[in-house]
């Protein structure tokens, strides 16, 4: 990825120099080797830009705000981020003219939580060599495969193609596409009894602290004022005062993004309690695919999404399979 980072910086410098863009939206190196923060760079500080296997943040949502500003911004988007970008273009949330998209190749994003689960804690540095991570920790050197510690979303990677890009950075050493079963866990849940499913979701959703990270990071959650923040809606709340509210928040949030969710997995990535929120979104995606035809939100920037279209012989409510009975 070092070669890629170098190439990104070169392209960015050139585009800044010739005036195509006046700033760059990318990731800034953090305190450690893994805590990169989204940041906007100019010619002076572009050196602080970093690109490695820890640049998880999907930058497309920032473009809603960035494209409202003066000038043109260079946005670094990984292949899967471009789906979110397209969806936002479709929803008229981003001014396309004000964004120059530079597609950056991705070999999968590592999840620090997964490193911790493997007992790799007290991380001091991480060296990446091909698909192998060598981690120096306070408690000795540890090794692991990048593939074993990938973010959930990378396990069902959408592939290396960019859905939108004005230019791309070439991948010097493309990796093989990981083909995990995207709906495997959804199916597993559907095979459980209703009681088991209820128990599963109750124990997951009861962890929710209602921090709104899932909502605020979600590119599909771009409402100016969320219904859960609107005192006039009757459902506004800042805490899950009752288990009902835990359920309601997540059901409604998943429903509001149904058909528009690109399955970018940011919700699960940011959840401090590790709730597998993508399993809610993927259920909707699976239902949509099976009942209304295969649909990938953000694969294009104009087609109407499934919940704003219909056919005369759509499946009747109650006939769609939510799970075994």
């Amino acid at each position, binding site marked *: 990825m070092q070669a890629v980072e170098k190439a990104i910086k070169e392209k960015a410098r050139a585009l800044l120099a010739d005036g195509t863009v006046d700033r760059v939206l990318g990731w800034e190196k953090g305190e450690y080797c893994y805590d*990169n923060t989204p940041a906007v760079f100019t010619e002076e500080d572009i050196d602080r830009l970093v690109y490695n296997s820890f640049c998880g943040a999907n930058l497309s949502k920032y473009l809603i705000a960035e494209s409202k500003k003066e000038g043109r911004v260079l946005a670094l988007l990984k292949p899967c981020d471009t789906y979110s970008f397209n969806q936002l273009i479709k929803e008229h949330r981003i001014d396309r003219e004000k964004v120059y998209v530079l597609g950056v190749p991705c070999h999968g994003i590592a999840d620090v939580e997964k490193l911790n689960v493997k007992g790799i804690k007290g991380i001091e540095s991480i060296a990446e060599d091909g698909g192998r991570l060598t981690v120096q920790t306070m408690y000795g050197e540890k090794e692991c495969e990048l593939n074993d510690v990938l973010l959930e979303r990378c396990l069902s990677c959408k592939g290396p193609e960019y859905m939108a890009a004005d230019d791309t950075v070439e991948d010097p050493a493309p990796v093989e596409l990981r083909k995990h079963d995207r709906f495997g866990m959804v199916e597993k849940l559907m095979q459980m009894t209703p009681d088991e499913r209820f128990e599963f979701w109750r124990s997951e959703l009861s*962890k929710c602290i209602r921090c709104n990270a899932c909502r605020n990071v979600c590119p599909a959650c771009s409402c100016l004022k969320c219904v859960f923040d609107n005192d006039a809606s009757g459902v506004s709340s800042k805490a899950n005062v009752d288990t009902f509210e835990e359920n309601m928040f997540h059901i409604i949030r998943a429903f509001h993004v149904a058909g528009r969710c690109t399955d970018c997995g940011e919700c699960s990535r940011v959840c*401090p309690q590790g709730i597998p929120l993508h399993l809610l979104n993927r259920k909707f995606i699976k239902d949509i695919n099976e009942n209304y035809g295969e649909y990938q939100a953000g694969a294009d920037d104009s087609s109407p999404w499934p919940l704003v279209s219909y056919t005369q012989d759509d499946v009747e409510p109650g006939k769609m399979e939510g799970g075994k009975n």
Partner: protein
Amino acid sequence: MQKIAMDRISEFYSAMAAERALYLPLKKRGAVNFGRWQEGADVDIDALHTVKSPKDLFFPQSEDIVAFKMKGKEIEIDAPDTPDEPFAVFGVRACDARAMEVLDRVFLSEPVDTYYRARRENGVVITLACTAPEETCFCSVFGIDPAQPGGDVSTWLSGGFLYLKAVTEKGEAFLAGLTPLEEANDAEIEPAVRALEETMERLPLKDLDLTGIDGNATEKLFGSEQWAELSRACLGCGTCTYICPTCQCYDIRDFDTGKEIRRYRCWDSCMYSDFTRMAHGNPRKSQVERFRQRFMHKLVYFPANNDGMYSCVGCGRCVAKCPISMNIVKVAKALGAEARK
């Protein structure tokens, strides 16, 4: 000092739980949080931090404070009983124990918050010395010694035993009632304490310099141009606030149950856009002001009002959990130079 073998630890939990409700770090679906112990619970005392701090037990995320019955033009006020269940919380780290002192400053200062005080009086805090601090830890910056975790009873893990020592009278009384403990010598925890001290020396953030960032720094830091850059990626979520052991801002809201109006208070976050919104406008209009408020409060305003005590204990939760990896360490480093100018 007393001890109990780790292979008999569940006897110890049973004994504590027989005395009073016992809360300790439990693992549920991969996340460790304080929960009520019962036979067979998945206790995880090796986890360095729970996701939510133990403040939840003293200042719950939501609690009813009063209820009203509306009868025509009349209002009937009904206050809930003061919480009176005696409980013990085990596995509190030194940083979280200090955080309670921070919360005490807020809730036990006049006028005393009776809801918090009741829980504080009902609770026995049993701390646990750290064994494996992580790179996100910086408690020593605030003068916290994780080898002397404080609380009512302090405990240490060493050589297959859990060692216990009462710190307060309350703790002494609590330990006196527990039968399965054996007598032990103070020297027995020495190796563990030394090992911890050595690890502490390796922490990357141990030298975080807060010089200049104190109660007097308002003038220098409030107008800093760096706030805009630092806050740019902030999502405005409440993760840092809700997992923070010292954040204590709250909201008071009403819920109509159909039979009565329940007024409850719940955690709130200064990162939220509606935190300061009034009918005629919002004084903190953008995320820049809200972000600044959080860090100024922790590092400047709180020390100004509390004899220099920071409202940060270096637990590192926000360092590990911020969705965009922006945290108090980065802020302090960025502003440090400006503060020392």
